[in-house]
């Protein structure tokens, strides 16, 4: 590193320029990682927070929250199946909602769950389900849209009135805030007539025999064949929790887009760093030939050049990542979907440093091909 350190100081203009490029790539990569994680959280946070291992949809080619419909026989069958710790019906319907004064609340997803079951989230404010008639727990996103505990809002089309009794963190699905409601209220809203049953009448019992899917807690290590056999018995299609994320609308596409942008950034970074060190090595050809003529080995020169690349990459990545973290914090404060967790930051920065070092390693290989005879002036 004797020459490397002095080169960094001597050609600081060139290295600063290169460091700036790496820092900008690190900045963008980290920012995108944070945004990707934020988008994921915003998209499937409701699913992530569900205390389940698997979800059983109505059998179809691919699981769908919108098209699945299961009946009581299915969820009760699952409850009694081998290896099942718990099984609960879960209803999922998207509605447009509005305040009493008709101002819009945009889309909400109504999740029908059994109050007190393992599906009920713990409200960070307010109380649990079931104590107040028509009481619901809402995602914090709806608080940002103007709802608060005690407010009543209306589901469009079905005219069901719901009252906020509790608030949870930003629990969404497909970027739409979740409204947790007792499953009977969900069944009324989803399958019943608009505005509820006519005065003096009650809804037929059969309405309460349906839901969207069965939320499952299965024993760990349960054989896939065991699950498949139960699926066949009850006409369901069971997927694990991670696979259930992909059933959320737009999740796969968003993830693929952000991952593609990140991959391109890392590849571009590797190519740019490689190109820089190729040009730098070519510019230093005469100097490298001289050091070889003086008795410098390829190992010494490669170690020196790679050390230079490591210093450049690490410092620039640190600087760029630091900038992205600062801006990310501002994003979070302004309510944008952005997640800063050490794993996200570390993995994106590491990929960048590794890609940059690979690029530079390929280019500094040129060192081994330089003939020390060029130290004598011209190549003879």
């Amino acid at each position, binding site marked *: 590193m*004797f*020459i490397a350190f*002095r*080169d960094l*100081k*001597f*050609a600081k203009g060139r290295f600063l320029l290169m460091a700036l490029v790496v820092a900008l790539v690190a900045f963008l990569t980290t920012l995108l990682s944070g945004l990707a994680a934020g988008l994921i959280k915003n998209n499937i946070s409701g699913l992530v927070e569900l205390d389940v291992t698997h979800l059983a949809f109505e059998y179809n080619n691919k699981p769908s929250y919108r098209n699945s419909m299961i009946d009581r026989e299915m969820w009760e069958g699952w409850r009694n199946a081998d290896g099942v710790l718990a099984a609960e019906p879960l209803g999922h319907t998207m509605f447009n909602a509005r305040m009493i004064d008709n101002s819009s609340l945009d889309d909400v997803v109504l999740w029908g769950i059994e109050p007190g079951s393992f599906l009920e989230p713990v409200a960070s404010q307010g109380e649990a389900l079931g104590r107040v008639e028509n009481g619901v727990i809402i995602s914090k996103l709806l608080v940002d849209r103007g709802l608060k505990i005690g407010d009543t809002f209306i589901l469009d089309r079905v005219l069901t009135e719901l009252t906020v009794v509790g608030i949870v963190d930003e629990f969404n699905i497909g970027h739409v805030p979740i409204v947790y409601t007792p499953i009977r209220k969900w069944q009324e809203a989803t399958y019943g007539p608009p505005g509820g049953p006519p005065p003096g009448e009650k809804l037929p019992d059969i309405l309460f025999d349906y839901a969207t899917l069965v939320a499952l807690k299965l024993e760990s290590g349960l054989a896939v064949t065991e699950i498949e056999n139960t699926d066949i018995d009850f006409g369901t299609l069971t997927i694990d929790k991670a696979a259930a994320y992909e059933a959320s609308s737009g999740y796969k596409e968003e993830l693929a887009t952000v991952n593609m942008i990140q991959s391109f950034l890392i590849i571009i970074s590797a190519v740019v760093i490689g190109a820089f060190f190729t040009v730098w090595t070519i510019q230093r050809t*005469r*100097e490298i030939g*001289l*050091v*070889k*003529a*003086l*008795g*410098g*080995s390829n190992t*010494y020169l490669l170690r020196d050049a790679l050390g230079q690349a490591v210093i450049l990459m690490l410092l620039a990545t640190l600087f760029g990542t630091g900038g992205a973290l600062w801006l990310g914090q501002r994003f979070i404060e302004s309510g944008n979907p952005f997640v800063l967790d050490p794993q996200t930051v570390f993995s994106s920065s590491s990929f960048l440093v590794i890609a940059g070092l690979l690029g530079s390693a390929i280019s500094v290989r040129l060192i081994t091909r330089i*003939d*020390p*005879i060029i*130290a*004598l*002036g011209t190549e*003879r």
Partner: protein
Amino acid sequence: MSLSVQSVTLELGDGDQKIRALDNVSATVLSGELAAVLGPSGAGKSSLLAVCGGLRPPTSGEITVAGQVISSLSPAALTKVRRDLIGFVFQQSNLVPALTALEQLLLLVHLKGRRPKAADRERGMALLDEVGMTQRADRRPDQLSGGERQRVGIARALMSEPKLLLVDEPTSMLDQERGHAIVELLAERCHQHQVATLMVTHDQTMLASASTVMHIRDGKLIQER
């Protein structure tokens, strides 16, 4: 004897393009002796330096430096020979742009795989003092004149206590007065350090300090005195 060249031939190129850069060359240079090789451009002067310095293997013949036959060594072994036994003074001095005058000398310590100690710095400063460069020890090549760079090059060549000094046209970038001063300095240093020195030049006026003069033409050493 520190350098022995026995019946060395060097052929370059292939097929019709093949040329004989050195043709059955033999010479010896003793410790403390400055041998000058005079010849026009393209005569084979630099080829002679290249084979003597282990920068190019001869096609045939044998080269011995400080008792070690180097003409059949591997590239890695030749790197070690250059590091431990041979000092180079190049045309235009050939210094590393990012290093100061003292660091040019300390680089040779690093190439041996160890960090310079106080004793190495003292030796470096003493060598710079011998060539009159103590006051410019902290200057980089772009802050030195051509003559000063050449002086640093001489000090660097002596830093690793070589047995053989190979000098390539040391005065080509200097005016005559400075050129003479450099060659005299070289002669003094090689005598003082008892280093066998082989200097190639095309400038006849630089021969006064040489103890032996050889002429080279078309790859053949044609005269020796």
